[in-house]
């Protein structure tokens, strides 16, 4: 079937469907189609990313030019500064990294990649997005209630987060906590769907080792999330009771224990890093195999390594608490486990490098993003070794070194990884090719300023600059001219990076309106999503064309074939 015929079929299909179920805009809001829900997650995530980016702009301006009237915001008060920093972190992790990487791409890709017509529980899937949307509304509303948004950092340590006299945001802190808890419920429902769908809905012939790695990675990430989130929900219920009902779970004066929250939070918080990392690595390996035209080096090795990473990630959490007064013997144990977890992560990097070796590499925009992910994430990983060692961490703790370290891990995951996935699957999602020149301008305009933001922050951190200070003029030893220059370099680089994002939005709209038609398989890739029309119709494939699977997903450059790729659904 040609593409025009495909488009006609799809138009007719939609026209026919209008007679059933909700009409007009409601059709999009109440859709149970996994692709539509994926898009809803994606656009909500992008909207939240714009808000999170705006927050970063406001507080970076305050740090570089203290007391200035920030254009578009005005004077930043200390309370507002705290609320901005807290909600920037919360939004970027829970409302950008997770919804886009796991929920959006998980929803869009998993049924398409395993040859299913939809998720196993489509209505639970819809409920998941609706709860997520509600949580986003509550979080944004919390910024405008009396007293302002919560300002006790995204980790919300009590007693600061538990006692209204300390944080001064009686309503804001409870709303923040409720929003986070609702967001977890949304991902719980989504995760159940992903795992069940991957296990029960695969196309005939698709064995466990024929599943594309990115689908595995999203599902393993979901399992990690499900196993780690319980204790945090327990802790959040107790914190909410402390805030609203007046219990004393975290109040030492009444027999409670504030460190208890740190354990419950980080038992979730550290696996959470791998929850968002694994999908990004999965995206990277898909893109690298496609554009290196080479079979993934060690599919099973990669899969088992991922499982090992997941298991280890449950035994490292207390490395966030080295200066919280934990027993030094316990600190030793957690130093060892933390350094151990760099072994499987290094293995994943070597698998990707070995896949590149000897390949016939095409530097398209998605490939550039995938390679940048590896390069930048490596810097984040290596600087993590300093922080994982309890001795060094005593010096580095709560300085900008920590901040630069986790931005070197989270930025590649949440931004670079997302752009890699978005540019790679854009033809499938919208049926049009993205403009490659604009894509490359956006790529260099994002990655170069990114390094100019955070390398100065590493240096500032080594200089002893503490993380949570609103105005460094109040601290003479941190207010030296050389430190201000570094802060200003970081802020100006941020402005440059934000400006280049306009190129991305322009490219999206331009390509969507007038881009070249993509066809079914523009990248000549093997996985099942490329065997259907772009964008795929409701139900993904016509009933009598549901795919059968005959081989693994990475059979590129097979010696017995003339073309250099071998789609999973072709018998021979």
């Amino acid at each position, binding site marked *: 079937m040609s593409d025009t015929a495909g488009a006609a079929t799809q138009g007719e299909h939609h026209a*026919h469907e209008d007679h059933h179920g909700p009409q007009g805009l409601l059709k999009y809001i109440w859709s149970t189609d996994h692709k539509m829900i994926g898009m809803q997650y994606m656009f909500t995530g992008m909207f939240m990313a714009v808000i999170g980016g705006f927050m970063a702009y406001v507080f970076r301006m305050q740090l570089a030019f203290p007391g200035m009237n920030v254009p578009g915001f005005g004077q930043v008060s200390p309370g507002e500064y705290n609320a901005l920093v807290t909600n920037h972190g919360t939004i970027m992790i829970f409302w950008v990294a997770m919804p886009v990487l796991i929920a959006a791409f998980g929803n869009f890709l998993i049924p398409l990649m395993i040859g299913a017509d939809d998720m196993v*529980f489509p209505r639970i899937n819809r409920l998941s997005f609706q709860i997520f949307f509600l949580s986003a509304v509550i979080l944004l509303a919390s910024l405008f209630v009396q007293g302002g948004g919560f300002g006790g950092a995204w980790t919300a340590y009590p007693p600061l987060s538990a006692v209204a006299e300390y944080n001064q945001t009686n309503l804001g802190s409870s709303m923040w906590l409720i929003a986070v808890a609702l967001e977890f419920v949304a991902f719980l429902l989504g995760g159940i769907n992903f795992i069940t769908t991957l296990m*029960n809905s695969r196309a005939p012939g698709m064995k466990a080792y024929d599943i594309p790695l990115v689908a595995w990675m999203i599902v393993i990430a979901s399992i990690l999330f499900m196993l780690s*989130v319980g204790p945090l929900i327990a802790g959040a219920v107790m914190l909410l*009771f402390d805030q609203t009902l007046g219990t004393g*779970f975290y109040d030492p004066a009444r027999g409670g224990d504030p460190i208890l929250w740190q354990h419950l939070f980080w038992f979730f918080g550290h696996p959470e890093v791998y929850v968002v990392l694994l999908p990004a690595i999965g995206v990277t390996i898909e893109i690298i195999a496609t554009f290196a035209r080479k079979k993934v080096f060690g599919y099973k090795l990669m899969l088992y390594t991922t499982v090992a990473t997941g298991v280890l990630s449950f035994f490292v959490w207390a490395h966030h608490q080295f200066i919280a007064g934990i027993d030094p013997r316990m600190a030793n144990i957690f130093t060892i486990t933390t350094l151990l977890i760099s072994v499987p992560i290094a293995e994943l990097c070597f698998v990707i490098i070995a896949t590149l070796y000897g390949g016939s590499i095409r530097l398209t925009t998605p490939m550039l993003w995938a390679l940048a992910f590896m390069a930048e994430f490596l810097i984040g990983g290596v600087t993590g070794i300093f922080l994982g060692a309890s001795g060094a961490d005593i010096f580095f703790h709560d300085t900008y070194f920590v901040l630069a370290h986790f931005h070197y891990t989270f930025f590649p995951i949440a931004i670079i990884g997302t752009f890699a996935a978005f540019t790679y699957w854009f033809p499938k999602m919208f049926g049009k090719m993205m403009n490659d020149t604009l894509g490359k301008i956006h790529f260099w305009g994002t990655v170069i300023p990114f390094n100019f933001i955070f390398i100065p922050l590493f240096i500032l951190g080594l200089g002893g600059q503490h993380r949570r200070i609103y105005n460094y003029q109040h601290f003479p030893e941190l207010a030296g001219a050389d430190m201000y220059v570094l802060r200003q370099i970081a802020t100006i680089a941020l402005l440059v990076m934000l400006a280049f994002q306009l190129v991305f939005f322009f490219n999206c709209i331009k390509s969507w309106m007038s881009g070249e038609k993509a066809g079914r398989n523009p990248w000549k890739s093997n996985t099942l999503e490329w065997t259907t029309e772009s964008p795929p119709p409701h*139900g993904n494939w*016509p009933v*009598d*064309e549901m795919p059968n699977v005959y081989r693994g997903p990475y059979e590129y450059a097979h010696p017995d074939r003339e073309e250099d790729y071998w789609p999973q659904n072709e018998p021979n």
Partner: protein
Amino acid sequence: MTTQAATHPVEHRPAPQKRPKMIADGVLGMLIFVFTEIMLFAGFISAHAIVRSQVAGEMWPPYGQPRLPVQETAVNTAALLLSGIVLIVAQVAFKKGAVRAKVPLLIATLLGAFFVFSQGTEWTALISEGLTLTSSTYGGFFYTIVGAHALHAIAAIGGLVWAFYELHENRLTSAKLGTVAVFWYFVVLVWPVLYVKVYL
């Protein structure tokens, strides 16, 4: 050739061919959910254990706070465990013939309702004796943990009632019964752990 097939709304399409399932969708989804729930209660229980271990002089319950009714709750625990066993009987009977499951399913539901009801009366007695959510961390943990379990029990009883209704309407499948039963087994089996940790 495919136009006709593609114009079917997805709800009316024939189900596509898939690999054979080892376990029904609903049961698998519920099992995954139960693992999350186990971790939730693990979080509560470890928080409780940590706070309890830090109490000076092993004063637990703290001075002036009432003891929990260990014996009455033991009876409740027995009723709940019995309900779980009766539900196993119901599942076995359902395989032999749907109607046979009716009586055991009803008994299991009633035993569960008895458990929730007598826990409720126990709460009102404890509140009148001065044990409240805010009276001490002892009370706080008791009401939070046992309350979380009670919410799960009520939800699961709702599921059992729904299964009974579906059976009455002749729509119950073993997958539906299995989904509800997995959640009820979780509620039943987590309780003895809570009983030992919180009451004893």
